C-alpha cells in the first residue's frame, strides 16, 4: 500500500503504470526493477545453487527465505510489496525433483510458469569464464521471441528480471558478459558467456583496410580488438507452461499444449514397464491353464476320455 501511495502522491509521475517503471525525471522514463528471488520448501541442492547463481548475477535482486506454501502463491504479492520488489522469481520444487520457476510482475503484471530442466550450476560446470559480480549483462534474444505473443511477454519479463537496470545499486560500470536466450524445440535455453577482448584476426583484406583506417584515427588500439566468448554458466532450459494475466492469479491467457508433465512422463515409463510384466504373467497363466486342460499337471484332474479319444479308438 505504501508503494501505491508513494506512486500516487508523486506529482511528476503522471504516466506511471502498474509495473512502476516510474519516471525519475519527467520526460525520461527510468527503468527501475527489483526482483524478489525465493524458493519453496523441498528444493534440492542443485535448485538452491541455481538460485544462488542467479541471485549473484542480479544485483537488483533480493533473496528471501524459503516460502512455505505451494498453494497460496498470491501471498507472494504481499511479500514482494514488503520488500519493494516489482518482480518475483519463485522456484517451486515438487516431489523433491521437479523444479518449476514462476516469473511474475508483481502488482498486476502477467505471471509465467516454467518447468526447468537440464540444470547445471556455475560450480559444477567448470567453465573458465568469469565476470564481475553485478556487471550489467547484454541480453541476447532469439528472433523467435519477436514472433509469438506469448514469447514476447516472456521476453519482456526476462528483460526486466535478468537485465540489470542502469545505475542499479551494486552494479559495476563495465559490460563483460552476455546472457543468451534461445528458443529451440519449444523450450527456452539460457546461457551465460563472458566477453573477452582478443586481437582481431587479420585474414581478409577488408579487415586490413579497416585496421589501417583505425590506425590513422586516434582510437586505433581499441578498434583492433574483437570479442570472443567464454562460457561462465549456469545453464538451464525453461519450458513455458502457463501464462496468467494477474500476479499469481487471474485468468490463464496462454497454455503450452506441448508441455508434458514430468509426472506423466514417469508414469508412462512405469506403465510401459508394467505392461511387459503383465504380458509375461498372462502368458504364464495361459500356459498353465492349457496344461491343466490337457491333464498334464500333477494337481489337475485327468482328462476325461470320451469315445472318440485317440486312446479309446486305438486301444
Amino acid at each position, binding site marked *: 500500500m505504501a508503494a501505491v501511495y508513494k506512486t500516487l502522491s508523486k506529482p511528476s509521475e503522471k504516466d506511471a503504470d502498474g509495473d512502476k517503471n516510474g519516471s525519475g525525471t519527467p520526460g525520461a522514463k527510468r527503468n527501475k526493477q527489483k526482483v524478489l528471488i525465493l524458493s519453496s520448501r523441498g528444493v534440492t541442492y542443485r535448485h538452491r545453487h541455481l538460485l544462488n547463481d542467479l541471485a549473484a548475477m542480479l544485483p537488483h535482486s533480493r533473496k528471501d527465505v524459503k516460502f512455505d506454501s505451494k498453494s497460496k502463491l498470491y501471498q507472494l504479492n504481499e511479500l514482494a510489496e514488503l520488500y519493494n520488489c516489482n518482480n518475483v522469481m519463485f522456484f517451486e520444487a515438487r516431489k523433491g525433483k521437479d523444479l518449476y520457476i514462476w516469473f511474475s510482475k508483481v502488482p498486476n503484471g502477467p505471471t509465467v510458469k516454467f518447468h526447468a530442466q537440464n540444470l547445471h550450476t556455475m560450480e559444477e560446470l567448470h567453465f*573458465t569464464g568469469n565476470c564481475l559480480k553485478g556487471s550489467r549483462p*547484454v*541480453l541476447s534474444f532469439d528472433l523467435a521471441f519477436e514472433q509469438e*505473443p506469448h514469447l514476447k511477454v516472456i521476453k519482456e519479463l526476462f528483460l526486466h528480471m535478468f537485465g540489470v537496470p542502469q545505475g542499479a545499486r551494486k552494479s559495476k560500470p563495465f559490460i*563483460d558478459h552476455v546472457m543468451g536466450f534461445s528458443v529451440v524445440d519449444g523450450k527456452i535455453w539460457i546461457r551465460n558467456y563472458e566477453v573477452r577482448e582478443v586481437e582481431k584476426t587479420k585474414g581478409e583484406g577488408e579487415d586490413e583496410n579497416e585496421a589501417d583506417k583505425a590506425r590513422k584515427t586516434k582510437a586505433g588500439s581499441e578498434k583492433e580488438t574483437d570479442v570472443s*566468448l567464454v562460457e561462465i554458466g549456469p545453464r538451464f532450459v525453461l519450458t513455458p507452461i502457463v501464462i496468467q494475466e494477474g500476479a499469481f492469479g487471474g485468468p490463464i491467457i496462454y*497454455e503450452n499444449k506441448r508441455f508434458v508433465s514430468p509426472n506423466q512422463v514417469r508414469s508412462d515409463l512405469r506403465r510401459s514397464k508394467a505392461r511387459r510384466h503383465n504380458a509375461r504373467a498372462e502368458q504364464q497363466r495361459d500356459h498353465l491353464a492349457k496344461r491343466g486342460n490337457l491333464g498334464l499337471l500333477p494337481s489337475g484332474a485327468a482328462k476325461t476320455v470320451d469315445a472318440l479319444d485317440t486312446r479309446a479308438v486305438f486301444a
Partner: protein
Amino acid sequence: MGKKKTISRVEGASKEKKNVKAKPVKQKADKKKTTPPAPVADEMEVDKVADDEWEDEDDGADADADASTVPPRSANKKDKKQKKTKTSKQQTPVPPAAEADEQDDDDSGSDDDEDNEMIGYDNHGIDLAGIDDSDSDSELEKEDKDGQDNGNDSEDEIDVDDLSISGSEDGENMRALTRIRETINNKDALLASLKRIALDVTPGVVPFAVHQSVVAPTTTQSTMGDAAVDDDLARELAFMNQAMGAARTARALLRKEGVPFTRPVDYFAETLRSDATMELVKAKMVEEATAKKASAEARKLRDLKKFGKQVQVAKQQERAKEKREVLSKIDQLKKKRKEGASAALGANETEDMFDVAVDNELGDSSKGNKRSAGGDSGGRPNKRVKKDTKFGYGGKKRHAKSGDATSSGDLSTFSAKRMKSTSGGRPGGAGGKPGGGGGHKAPRLGKSRRKAAGRK
C-alpha cells in the same frame, strides 16, 4: 494452483457423470424419453443403473445384465457407495471460485437437452477421466466456453467414485495418453498485458545502454539447420553464435554512446565466481592436460615396445650375418695368405706386415682385386702354386730349425747395452741374480715373436 486443481477435479467428475449417464440413454432410450425431467431422487436411480452397467462392462462376465434384473443387493451396495462418495466429497475443499458459481448459474437448461448433449460428450468424458489432475488446467477454459454446461451439484457428488474406478483402467489411461488437449492462446490478452509492462526500447529514442538487449536477426532454430536438438555441439555453437552477434552489436552501440565496455586491466572488483572456484577450475584443467599428456606418452611407449621387438630381432640377425661374412672372408684370406707366404716370401713381406691384404679383402671384395692379389705371388699361375704347396718346391725342408752361417752371423738380437754389466741397472734384479755376470737378461721370448723381432 491448489484452488484450480480442485475446480478441475470437480469438472472432471461432472464430465464423467455425463458419460455415465449417456450410456443408459443410448441403451434404453424409450424409457428415458418418457421419464419427465428428474427430481434428485429419480436421478439417483438412473445413476444406479448406470453404475451397474458400468460395472458389468468392467467385469465382462454377464453379457445380458440389464437394469431390470438388477438385484436389490447391488442396489444397496450402490447406496452405500453413494454415501461413501458423499463423505469423501465433503473432505475435498469446496472451491470458492467464480467459475463454480458461473457453472451453477448455467444449470437452468432442461434435462432433455442435457441428455442429447451428453451423447455428444461421450468420448470426451472418457478422455478426461484419465487426465492427471495436476495438469488439467485446460478444462477451466473449456468450462467457460460452453455456457450451457449443466452438471448439478448432487450429480457431481455421486460420481466421484466412478471417476476413480474408470480412471484406474488401463484402456482409459491408454486413451488419456493420446488425448488432444485444448490449448489456450489468448493473443489479445497476451499483447495487452505485454503493453502494460513493456519498457520502451525504441532504438532511436531510448539509448541502448538503458536496456542492453539485442534481438538476433535469425532464429536459433534456423541457424541450427537440420541438426537435432540432441546434437550438443551444433546446438551450443548456435547459441554461442547468437550471443557473439549480440556482443558485437552491443559493443558497437555502447561505444557509440560512450559507455565504457571493456574492463580495464587495473580495475579489480569482486567477481561472479570466487578466486577459490577459479583456482579449482584451473587445477582441474592442468590435471586434465597432464593426464592427456601422460596417456599420450604411455601410448607412444606401448607402440614403441611392440615395434621395438621386431627392430631388435632384425638388428641381431643383421649383426650375425655381418659377423659370418667377415669371418668367412678372414678364413679365405688366411688360406690365401698361407699360400702366399709359402710361395713368395720376399715379395709380399711388406703387405703381410700391415695386413694390407686383409684390409683389401674386407674393404672391397671385387673380382679385380682378387685377381691382382692372386697375381702378386710371383706371377705364377694359380695351379702351380697349389701344386707347389701340395708336393713341395724349393729345396729340402729338413734342418730348417738348425743354425747355419746366416743365423750365427745374425747379430740383430745382440744389444751392447745389455752386454755391459752394470750393477745399478735394476736394483731388485741385480741382487736377485748373483751369478749373472752379464747383468740382467730378459727372459727368452717365444719362437714366433723372436722371429718377428728378427725380421726387424
